């Protein structure tokens, strides 16, 4: 690295909007075929460097995108969106993904109207006291993110005591587990920029 890093990476967790820069070559927009557009699901994602990188394997990207959307956006029943986003933000905070945490902390703030509590999760980390229900969601997410996986009957009991039913607990499991997928891609294929 002879020149100064032009990317200007963030050095703290933040709810600000960040950019993301790939370390390997995304496909150029001009080379995208119908197979690639099927993989992108939303054509607008062709503008994103991240998705034009992942679309190098279109079948996996398409299935991953549709899994993601149903886990987070299907709110006909189950856990409120805010708490699914909290699970995503807590997982990202624990794994250390500043980019993912920024996006999903923002969503958690938007849907919960508890921006200050979300910011405390980012500033203080996973031990921040956010009240019984949020603490249970954060703790379960963190236990799932640990390797070996530390999630056990105590986590289920805490979630139940906090008022979550079994379907809502499955939403926590899905949301937190999905971010162990997302964090690893975002952290390893490129880096965030301010």
């Amino acid at each position: 690295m002879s020149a100064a890093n032009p990317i200007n990476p963030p050095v703290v967790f933040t709810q600000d909007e960040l950019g993301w820069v790939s370390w390997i070559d995304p496909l150029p927009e001009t080379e995208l075929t119908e197979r690639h557009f099927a993989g992108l699901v939303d054509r607008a994602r062709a503008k994103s460097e991240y998705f034009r990188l992942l679309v190098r394997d279109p079948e996996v990207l398409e299935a991953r995108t549709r899994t993601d959307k149903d886990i987070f956006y299907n709110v006909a029943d189950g856990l409120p969106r805010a708490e699914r986003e909290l699970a995503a933000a807590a997982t990202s905070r624990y794994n250390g993904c500043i980019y993912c945490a920024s996006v999903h902390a923002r969503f958690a703030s938007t849907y919960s109207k508890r921006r200050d509590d979300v910011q405390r999760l980012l500033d203080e980390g996973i031990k921040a006291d956010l009240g019984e229900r949020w603490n249970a969601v954060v703790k379960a997410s963190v236990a799932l993110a640990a390797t070996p996986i530390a999630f056990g009957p105590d986590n289920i009991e805490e979630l139940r005591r906090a008022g979550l039913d079994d379907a809502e607990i499955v939403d926590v499991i899905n949301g937190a587990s999905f971010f162990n997928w997302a964090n690893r891609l975002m952290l390893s294929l490129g880096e965030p920029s301010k």
Partner: protein
Amino acid sequence: MGTLDIIDTLAGIEPGSALDAIRARRPQARENAQKSYLALFDPVDSSEVSLSERAAVAAFVTGLHGESPVVAFYREKLATSADGAPLLEAIKGEIARGRTSGPYGAYPAGPLSIEDKAGLIYRVSAERRPVLGAKLVAALEHAHLLVFRPRDASSADMKALLAAGWSATGIVTFSQLVAFLSFQVRVVTGLRVLGASLGRTAAGA
């Protein structure tokens, strides 16, 4: 498609059970977690990452998470894949060497540096390098980073994979493979724990 749902199978979810009904409320997530699995292990194009490479990485990654039905499943996949069986013993040995506790790693230098946590920087053992080959050696070393210390990842790790013979497209598929397995093993564990708690409730009622 006719294929059994892999998460239901590994989590022991029976048709008609309470968890089957709950999973049915997220039909797209269920169907596409399965499609992700099929796209990774029964791909339309395996020219960049071979089926035996996929099976070897899967056995290694799930093995690093500790013993479970998921580990047994991918070990069997490796044992029965065309060029995979000779790799099985080497992968088992490398899992034993690579097991540790995560996540750990370093943040970009700054206020978060106080949260930096040191841990194993795993490298494949010298005696197993010949049987695994340069490409798979680089893959296992990077997979270990992804499993335990993803926040340590840097552009130098991409260069190491490229230098070991991985293409950009191969790196994307391989990264998706490790990241997907990180998801799958957690969903299966979470659902198993929840399922066991339901069983206890029913038995105690």
